[in-house]
């Protein structure tokens, strides 16, 4: 265990809780720019797309120390983000803000059965003596022109069904969750979108 562990070791009996780390590039994100360009120019579901941003979402669950200590650990480690090129916003309670702007629909995408980060979990254990679960996925923040229900259009942009349909998630190997109004604090564990025959159906709503 790290010599610093005593300072951040959770007290016995600490109840497990969840903290989210929203991580965004400080510079313009070329991946989001490419996705936005392809969506807008090549996909019917990209019509009316105004903006597309990408963040990484890391969820930590377990006996976590105080928020400030979590922030310090995330900042100190190379397992989570690089503070020289990324900024990190920690959300420790459901009422805490998330970096989602008005009008944006948030979509979380992750590799099925591939969201856990064992190296980060080992690092945390070594640093704090606490065993936690670390999950990571990509959050796409989608803004459409305000002329229709954004959730339905976002779904069509997410689910890859063919060359001209969907981009952000290949459901054969990935999971996704969409949040229009409120992002759950335990987003990975939230209920999946109902399976529909085709996500292109306008009725494919939650």
């Amino acid at each position: 265990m790290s010599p610093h562990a005593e300072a951040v070791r959770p007290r016995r009996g600490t109840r497990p809780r969840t903290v989210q780390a929203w991580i965004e590039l400080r510079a313009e994100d070329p991946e989001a720019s490419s996705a936005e360009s392809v969506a807008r120019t090549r996909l019917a579901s990209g019509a009316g797309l105004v903006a597309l941003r990408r963040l990484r979402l890391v969820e930590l669950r377990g006996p976590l120390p105080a928020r400030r200590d979590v922030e310090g650990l995330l900042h100190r480690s190379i397992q989570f983000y690089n503070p020289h090129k990324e900024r990190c916003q920690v959300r420790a309670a459901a009422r805490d803000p998330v970096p989602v702007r008005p009008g944006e629909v948030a979509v979380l995408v992750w590799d099925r059965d591939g969201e856990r980060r064992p190296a980060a979990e080992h690092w945390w254990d070594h640093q704090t003596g606490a065993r936690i679960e670390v999950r990571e996925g990509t959050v796409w923040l989608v803004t459409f022109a305000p002329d229709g229900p954004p959730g339905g259009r976002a779904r069509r942009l997410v689910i890859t069904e063919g060359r001209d349909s969907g981009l952000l998630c290949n459901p054969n190997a990935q999971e996704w969750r969409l949040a229009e109004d409120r992002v759950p604090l335990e987003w990975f564990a939230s209920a999946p979108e109902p399976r529909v025959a085709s996500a292109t159906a306008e009725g494919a709503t939650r």
Partner: protein
Amino acid sequence: MSGRVAVIAFPGLNCETESARALERAGLEPEIVRWTRPASVLARFDAYVIPGGFSYQDRVRAGALAAKDPLVDALASESGAGKPVLGICNGAQVLVEAGLVPDDGVVRLALARNRMMGRSGYYASWVYVRVEPSRCVFTRGVPPGTVLPLPMAHAEGRFTSSEPALIGQLADAGQVPLRYATADGAPARVFPDNPNGAEGGAAAVCNRDGNVLALMPHPERAVDAGAVARRVAGPWAQRRDEALATGGEADGPGMVFFTALRRHLEGA
């Protein structure tokens, strides 16, 4: 025979030169077609190769952005007319994301992150693949059961589907022309024989007509028998040693696919 083959190079691909050389060695006429060329140019070719690399830097997902390119729409049209298309590694990812395998138009597969016991990320090694009964153009004339050693190098090469029975059904239909195997041809069960955890040990999947093949290993890196890795066993080890001893340029196992393409285009 007309054997003009377009080697389609999206930004970030890095195996176009080796792929063109392999085609040339098979007696074909390759031309590297960059993504900046109009899609209409593809009509004048007889066959197509999408080589390996990292198209569009693997942004969003490996192969996901290239799959939306107008060149791939043209490729779908040409392959629908029966022209052969070979996607190698990232090229295979493009074909899968474009829905060109296993059926035109619908994305029913993914090439997901490798599942490897005790490790994660990118994995590069030589593996064995076994030729299975199939209508695939690129293995035509190769007896089922033939074992080929080939190099592989990828982080996302695990054939999988949200339809649990799909890959088994594809195998039954002859659309899995290559499976990972042991050196003696037994089905690969676990890592490292199955280097990525692919369902059914699938190393390649083709479309129903057998003219479009998504192949994860890199045959273009195995065109010289002398370049076969030292740890490879079996008949290819003997051919490697002979090639090295004589300094000759005997064909390596990767040539099988390019030679089969030439034979197909010759109408043999």
